[in-house]
C-alpha cells in the first residue's frame, strides 16, 4: 500500500506543475475578524494546517470523518457516531485540546472532547496546530490542538445557504446558514439538525447496529458590532444538544442511551490603539451529560460543569520588530454529578508571548506561562519557536515546549476513587518542521519527540476500587509528511492532498506501543473539477492497533489494519449572480470494506448520501 502511494507521489512530483502560490486562508484573516490571533501570529515555528470553509460546507461529514480523512490525527470511534476520541501524535484524547475561538472547550469531567459532539456547521475555518500548545491554550494541548474559528466580516453582504441531505440508514440532515453585515453590524447564524437510525449492517454477519441511532441539533450564532473606530464588540454562541443510543458490540446488544447538552457563549471587546491592540473576553461554558444504562427506564447518571472565564490580552508593539502579548485569565469551574458532590476549581493564569522578527527571514517566539490553581500546583510552562526562511520555497521550523494536563473533576473527585493528591501530567517536546513550496506544490515534513511523565492512569487499588495515580511515563516520536498539489489546465482543475504519519508511542516501563495507536496512518484526497462538475476520491489507510498492552496480534489483541475509500460527485445545477443550486452524491466505504475501528465494534458498510444545496 505504502509503496503504491510512493510510486503515485513520485509520478505526481515529476509531472509538470504550473505556478500558483497557495495562500493560507487564515494568514490573510484580519485581526478584526478572528478571535484567536495567537494562532496566526504567535505560532510561526509550528505546523498549522487549515481546513477552510469550502471543505467544511461542501461535503458535510462528521467532524471525526473530516479529520480522519484530511489530517494525521487518528480517531478511536466506538462504532459510527458513538464516542470518538482523538490521538494526536500518539498522545491520548485528553492530551488533545479543542479550542473554540481561542478558548479550550475540553470537558472538565473527562479532560477530552468527544468529536461526535462537535458540529462544524458555520465555522469559517478549522485549524490543526501540531505540537505542544499548553502555554497558549492551557491544559491538554500536548499532542496538538484543533481550533474552531468563527470570523465576522464587516464587508457589506447578505448570503444564505440551505442544505438538505438524505442518506443510508435514514440519515436526514438539514442546515441553514445566514450571514449579513453592513459597515457597523455583522451577524451570522448556522442552524443544523441531523437524525440517523444508523442501523447499518454488520458485514459478514446477520446482525446490524441495533442500538446506534443518533440525533443532534446545533445553533452557532455570532454577532459583531462596531462601537467606534477603535472599539468592536462581538458575541459568539454555540449550542449543541444531542441524543445518542450507545451501540453494543458484535456479540452483545446494548440498551444504553447518552444525552449531551453543551452551551458556549463568549462576549469580546476589542480595542485598537496606536501601538497596541487589546481584548477583553468573558465567557460561560456549560457541559452536561446524562447516561441511561437502559433507555427504557428513567434511571440515569449525570455530570455537569459550568465554566466562567474572564480573559484579558494585549498585543503590544514594543519595537518595530518585537511584539509582546501578555495574557491574564481567570477561570472558575463548578461541577455537579452523580459521582461527586459539587466540587469547584479556580484557576488564575498569566502568560507572556514574545515575538521577534529581526528580518523577513527569521521569526523567534518565546512564551511563558504560570498558573495558580486551587487544589494542586501547576508547573511553569514555556515554549520557544523559530522559523527560518531558507529561500522563497524552503522554510525551516523548530519548536520546543513544556506542556501539561491538569487532573479532571473525575480524576480528583470521583466517588469512590477520586485522588486529591494528583499533580498535572507534564510533557516536554521538540518538533522540527520543513516546508517546501514550489509553484502549486507544497510539502511538509515534521519530526517530533514527546516525553510525558506523571501520566494519570486509573488503576484498581488495594481497597477494591479504581483510583487514578500519576504513574505512567511515555515517549512518542515519529514523522509526519503531507503533500498538497493543485493544477489547472484550462477548465480542468486537479488537486491532491495526502498525509502520512509514522508514530511510535510507548510506555517507558514496558517499551510497548500504547494501545490504539497505529504505527502507520495515511490518507489521500484527489479532487477534479471541470466546469459545473466536480468529483473527489478519499482513501484512508489505518495500520493495525493493539488493544492490549502485550502488543500481540489477533482478534483478541489487536484491530486489523484497514483501508477505506469514499467517492463523491458534485454538480452545479444552476448558477446566477445571486443564486446557486448544487446537488451532490457521496458514496462512503465504496468497496464495502469490512472494518472495525474499535475491537468488536463494526463500522458501516457501503452507504450513500444525497445532498442538495441552495445558496442565495
Amino acid at each position, binding site marked *: 500500500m505504502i509503496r503504491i502511494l510512493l510510486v503515485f507521489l513520485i509520478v505526481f512530483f515529476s509531472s509538470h506543475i504550473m505556478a500558483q502560490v497557495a495562500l493560507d486562508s487564515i494568514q490573510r484573516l484580519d485581526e478584526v475578524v478572528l478571535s484567536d490571533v495567537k494562532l496566526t501570529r504567535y505560532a510561526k515555528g509550528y505546523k498549522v494546517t487549515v481546513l477552510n470553509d469550502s471543505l467544511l460546507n461542501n461535503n458535510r461529514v462528521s467532524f471525526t470523518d473530516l479529520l480522519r480523512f484530511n489530517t494525521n490525527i487518528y480517531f478511536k470511534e466506538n462504532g459510527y457516531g458513538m464516542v470518538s476520541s482523538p490521538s494526536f501524535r500518539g498522545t491520548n484524547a485528553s492530551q488533545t485540546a479543542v479550542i473554540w475561538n481561542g478558548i479550550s472547550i475540553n470537558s472538565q469531567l473527562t479532560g477530552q472532547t468527544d468529536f461526535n459532539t462537535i458540529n462544524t456547521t458555520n465555522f469559517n475555518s478549522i485549524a490543526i496546530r501540531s505540537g505542544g500548545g499548553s502555554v497558549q491554550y492551557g491544559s491538554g494541548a500536548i499532542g496538538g490542538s484543533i481550533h474552531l474559528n468563527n470570523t465576522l466580516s464587516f464587508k457589506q453582504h447578505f448570503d444564505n445557504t440551505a442544505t438538505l441531505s438524505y442518506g443510508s440508514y435514514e440519515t436526514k440532515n438539514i442546515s441553514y446558514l445566514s450571514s449579513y453585515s453592513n459597515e457597523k453590524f455583522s451577524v451570522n447564524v448556522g442552524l443544523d439538525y441531523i437524525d440517523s437510525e444508523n442501523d447499518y449492517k454488520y458485514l459478514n454477519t446477520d446482525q446490524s447496529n441495533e442500538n446506534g441511532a443518533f440525533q443532534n441539533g446545533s445553533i452557532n450564532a455570532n454577532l459583531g458590532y462596531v462601537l467606534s473606530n477603535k472599539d468592536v464588540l462581538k458575541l459568539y454562541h454555540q449550542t449543541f444538544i444531542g441524543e445518542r443510543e450507545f451501540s453494543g458490540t*458484535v456479540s452483545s446488544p446494548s440498551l444504553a442511551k447518552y444525552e449531551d447538552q453543551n452551551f458556549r457563549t463568549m462576549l469580546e471587546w476589542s480595542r485598537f490603539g496606536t501601538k497596541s491592540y487589546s481584548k477583553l473576553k468573558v465567557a460561560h461554558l456549560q457541559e452536561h451529560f446524562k447516561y441511561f*444504562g437502559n433507555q427504557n*427506564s428513567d434511571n440515569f447518571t449525570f455530570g455537569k460543569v459550568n465554566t466562567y472565564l474572564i480573559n484579558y490580552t494585549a498585543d503590544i508593539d514594543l519595537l518595530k520588530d518585537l511584539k509582546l502579548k501578555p495574557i491574564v485569565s481567570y477561570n472558575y469551574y463548578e461541577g455537579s454529578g452523580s459521582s461527586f458532590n459539587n466540587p469547584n476549581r479556580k484557576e488564575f493564569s498569566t502568560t507572556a508571548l514574545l515575538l521577534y522578527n529581526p528580518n523577513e527571514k527569521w521569526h523567534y517566539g518565546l512564551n511563558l506561562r504560570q498558573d495558580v490553581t486551587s487544589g494542586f500546583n501547576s508547573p511553569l510552562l514555556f515554549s520557544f519557536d523559530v522559523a527560518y526562511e531558507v529561500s522563497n520555497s524552503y522554510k525551516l521550523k523548530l519548536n520546543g515546549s513544556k506542556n501539561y494536563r491538569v487532573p479532571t473533576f473525575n480524576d480528583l473527585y470521583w466517588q469512590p476513587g477520586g485522588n486529591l493528591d494528583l499533580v498535572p501530567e507534564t510533557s516536554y517536546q521538540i518538533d522540527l518542521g520543513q516546508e517546501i513550496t514550489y509553484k502549486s506544490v507544497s510539502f511538509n515534513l515534521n519530526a517530533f519527540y514527546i516525553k510525558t511523565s506523571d501520566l494519570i492512569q486509573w488503576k*484498581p487499588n488495594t481497597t*477494591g476500587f479504581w483510583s487514578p495515580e500519576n504513574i505512567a511515563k511515555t515517549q512518542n516520536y515519529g514523522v509526519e509528511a503531507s503533500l498538497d498539489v493543485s493544477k489547472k489546465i484550462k477548465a480542468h482543475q486537479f488537486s491532491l492532498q495526502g498525509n502520512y504519519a509514522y508514530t511510535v508511542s510507548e510506555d517507558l516501563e514496558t517499551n510497548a506501543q500504547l494501545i490504539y495507536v497505529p504505527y502507520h496512518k495515511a490518507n489521500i484526497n484527489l479532487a477534479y473539477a471541470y466546469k459545473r462538475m466536480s468529483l473527489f476520491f478519499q482513501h484512508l489507510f489505518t495500520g493495525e492497533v493493539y488493544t*492490549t498492552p502485550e502488543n500481540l496480534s489477533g*482478534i483478541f489483541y489487536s484491530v486489523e489494519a484497514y483501508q477505506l475509500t469514499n467517492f463523491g460527485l458534485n454538480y452545479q445545477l444552476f448558477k446566477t449572480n445571486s443564486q446557486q443550486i448544487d446537488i451532490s452524491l457521496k458514496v462512503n466505504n465504496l468497496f464495502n470494506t469490512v472494518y472495525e475501528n474499535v475491537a468488536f465494534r463494526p463500522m458501516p458498510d457501503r452507504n450513500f448520501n444525497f445532498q442538495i444545496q441552495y445558496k442565495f
Partner: protein
Amino acid sequence: MKKIILSMFAMSLLIVSCSSDDDATPSEPLGAYEDGIIVSGEGGPSSITFISEDLMTSENQIYFNVNNEATGVYLQSLGFNDDKAYIVVDAGTITVVNRYTFEKLGTISTGLTAPRYIAFANGKGYVTNWGDPYDEADDFVAVVDLTANTVISTIPVGNGPEQILAEDNVVYVSHKGAFSTNNIVSVINTSSDVLTTTITVNDNPDEMLVDDNGDLVVLSSGKPAWTGDETKAAITKIDMDTNTVSTTLEFSDGEHPELMMYLNGNLYYNLGSAVLSITDDATAVTSTPLFTTAATTLYGMAAKDDRLYFVDAVDYTSAGQLFIYDDTSYSLINSFNAPVVASKIYFN
C-alpha cells in the same frame, strides 16, 4: 483451525455412533476440552481459556476458536449441567455449549436482564438477574426450561441477586446488592418455584459453598470504608434444614475479603492478594495469611485435588494470569495466560 473443527465434528459423530456395547473398551474422549481447567474472563473482549489437567497444553479463546464468534460483554460466569455449559453474559444472553467441545448448541436470549449466575435443580435452570441495576425493585430469578432454552417463569427477589447455589432441589441466592448494597440470602423452593424465605447475613454477601458439615457457608464482604458507612465482613454458616444462621465469624474493620474456596476441610478466603484459611470448626477468622499470591489483582479462586487456583485481573486491560499453587507447600506450581479480566475458574 478448520481442521480442528472438522476433527471435532468427526469426533462428535464418533461419540454419537458409539453404542453402549462398547463399554468394555476405554471410552472415547468427549471432546478437546474434557478433563482440564476452564478460566473465563469478563473482557473486553471476554473469552474462555482451557488448560489441560496435566498442565501440558493450554488454549486461549476456545469458544471463539470453535464457533468463530465472540462471547460478549461482559462474561459474568459459567454454569455446568450434564454435558452442557452455560455462558452467562451481562448484556442479557446465555449461550449453551457442549462442555467438552464448546460447540454452540443454542442461546437463551429473551427474558434475561443483566443475568449474573446460573444453577440447576429439579431439571430446571435458575438464573439470577439484576434487572435494571438502578432499579432496586425489579430483580428476579429466571427459571429456564433446559430443553427448550427458554425462560418459563420469573421469581421476584430482593435487590442485587448474585451467586446461586442448588442443594437438594433448594436454591440459595446471595444478594450482593448490584449497584448498591444488600444483606440477604434468598431461599427458593424449586418444586413450586417460589421464594420461601430470606436469611439476613452481613452486608454484601457474594460467594457461597457447602462445607463438609453440610452447612451453607456465605462470605459477606461488608461495606468498605470509602462508603463512609463501613460495616464488618463476615463468614456466615447457615443450617440448611432450618434455614437459619448458626455461626457468624466477623472480620475486623478494614478487612473486606471478597473470594472464598474450600478444600479438604479448609475454608480459604482472601485479603487483597493474600490467602488465609480456617478450619470447619474455627470459632474466629484469622488475619494471618498462609501466603501471598503473585496476583496483582486477585479476582477469582478455586481449589481442587491438592491445588489452589488463582486468577489475576492485573490492570483490567492486559491479559489475565492463572496461578496454580500447591495446597500444602504453598509453592507456585505453574502459571498460564488467561483472558482479559480473568474472573472465574471451573473444572471440566
